[in-house]
């Protein structure tokens, strides 16, 4: 069905998540191939964010399995999943407000730099953590505010900072939850460039309402509705699929 027939990096098999009587995610199957850009779309309440939470480990599944890189991660906590290569960007930019921008990136890239071993000497800290962090800030366009406390950054800047933080963790799979939400036109443009420039050894699972962004970026698009998977395919197929139009039309009605 997808353009990527290679071995999947992430496989979700019949995952279920319930909140009381509400089934937020209902037996959804999902495969993300190595290097693939995979978009999740669907009307509000379709369960997209919940599905990302289940994959990132922020919430646990009520049924089904999740495999990452050939390994069953269903029972692993979020910290373990982050260390084996699942990075996450949240719907509301989650940065550490009392740390400066560069400190945010340093803490996020901590484990990639070798944990406590990476900071044993000042020179090592500089070389392994501080300098790469500054380079990442430069890449997302935040070099000028590196020593500003994150609490004093604008929403758009926090979004960029969170992307730098996610990249500092050198993820193999990047979970993006509505990265364009609340950004200005210029900022969205910048974000699209940044995402397009991501190296192909990073796979991306993107939840986004801006369909122009989705169609420009994604190799595969999966449509969710009421917690169920409606269809999955290449952007061109999805754009014209009647099932998709029905899903959105129902949500509007």
């Amino acid at each position, binding site marked *: 069905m997808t353009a990527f027939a290679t071995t999947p990096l992430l496989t979700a098999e019949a995952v279920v998540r319930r909140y009381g009587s509400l089934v937020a995610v209902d037996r959804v199957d999902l495969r993300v191939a190595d290097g693939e850009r995979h978009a999740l779309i669907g009307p509000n309440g379709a369960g997209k*964010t919940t599905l990302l939470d289940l994959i990132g480990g922020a919430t646990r599944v009520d049924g089904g399995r999740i495999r990452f890189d050939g390994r069953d991660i269903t029972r692993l906590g979020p910290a373990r999943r982050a260390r084996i290569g699942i990075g996450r960007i949240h719907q509301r930019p989650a940065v550490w407000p009392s740390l400066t921008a560069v400190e945010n990136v340093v803490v996020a890239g901590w484990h990639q730099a070798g944990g406590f071993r990476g900071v044993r000497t000042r020179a090592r800290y500089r070389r392994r953590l501080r300098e790469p962090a500054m380079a990442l800030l430069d890449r997302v366009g935040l070099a000028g505010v590196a020593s500003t406390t994150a609490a004093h950054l604008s929403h758009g800047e926090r979004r960029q900072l969170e992307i730098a933080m996610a990249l500092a963790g050198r993820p193999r799979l990047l979970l993006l939850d509505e990265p364009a939400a609340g950004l200005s036109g210029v900022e969205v443009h910048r974000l699209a460039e940044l995402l397009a420039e991501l190296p192909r050894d990073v796979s991306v699972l993107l939840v986004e309402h801006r369909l122009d962004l989705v169609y420009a970026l994604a190799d595969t698009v999966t449509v969710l509705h009421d917690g169920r998977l409606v269809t999955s395919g290449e952007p061109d197929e999805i754009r014209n699929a009647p099932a998709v139009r029905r899903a959105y039309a129902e949500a509007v009605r």
Partner: protein
Amino acid sequence: MTPAARRWLVRAGGVGLLLVAIALPWSVDAYTTSLFARTLVLGLVGVSVALLTGLAGLPTLGQTGPYAAGAYASALVAMHVSSVGVVQVLTGAAAGALFALLTVPLVVYARGVVVLMITLAIGELTVTAAGRWTSVTGGTDGLAGIPAIQPVWGMAPLASDRARYLYTLVVVGVVIAAMVMLLRTPAGLLLRASRDDEARTRASGHRVTGYLAVTFVGAGAVAGIAGSLLITAQQYVSPADFGFDVSALLLLGVVIGGAASIGGAIVGTALVIAVRDWLSGLLPGYAPLLLGGLFVLTAYLFPRGVAGFSTELANLVRSRSRGRTGPGDRPGTGIQGRPSRGEPVGAAPVSSGETR
């Protein structure tokens, strides 16, 4: 005030306070000097409370536990083993750390007010145990006749209140300098990140519970050292030194001083002890009332305590001129503890999509 000017002012204030602290025993009588020594000791316990409350986000009423463990262990060592200060301080630190290590599983999985209740229980149980375990602690009579301390091997025992005060000042100074240096390393960043947004810190692969456990044990060691200094300062120990009123005063002092500030913790604790000990002499019976008033005033006007005074004042002026009431909401204020479900503090409330 620019940050640089503020930092300069804080540094100048710190040096000034230190000079006053050194000159103090030559300008007041012996009894007042010994009171100051005990204030320093409680200030150090206050620092360990601030470390947990403000930096780790675990508000505690139970630091009297490791404080008592360190005090009794040091007292026993002083009476039966060695009168050398180094030995006693290390014994106190080890006893405090061990106490914290035993209680750490009860604390690090809880957050906020629950921590407050659990640590309160730990503190109360410790006092009860100290009162009942007569063969070791001397029960409610306490342990008296503890020999005078000699700081290092070969030195003469410290016979005067002035010498004991200076010894206490040196040890407190060394411990605080070590703590400040440790918190300035990148490890301090991890602690602040965990307090700011725990879920986010986990999502970056950090073992937050482990960091909190290490901090809790470290704070226990600091409180244990304070316990050994208590033995030096008053040469007597009883369960009354570790009662609930002491825990409450410490937390009050830390909140007044600014929960996230080590310097503020000492100033706040000293202020609270001063109100309790000296003003109660001038206005007998009114000390609790004064403390209560001080607390309400601080909580309302300066949620970041004395240490956050200038920032808060600036915010207050700014927000009043903008027509808002109350001080501006800033991250990491006061005793709020950590947000239990990882809501990012101070994140912009912009969200255009689903939230479930």
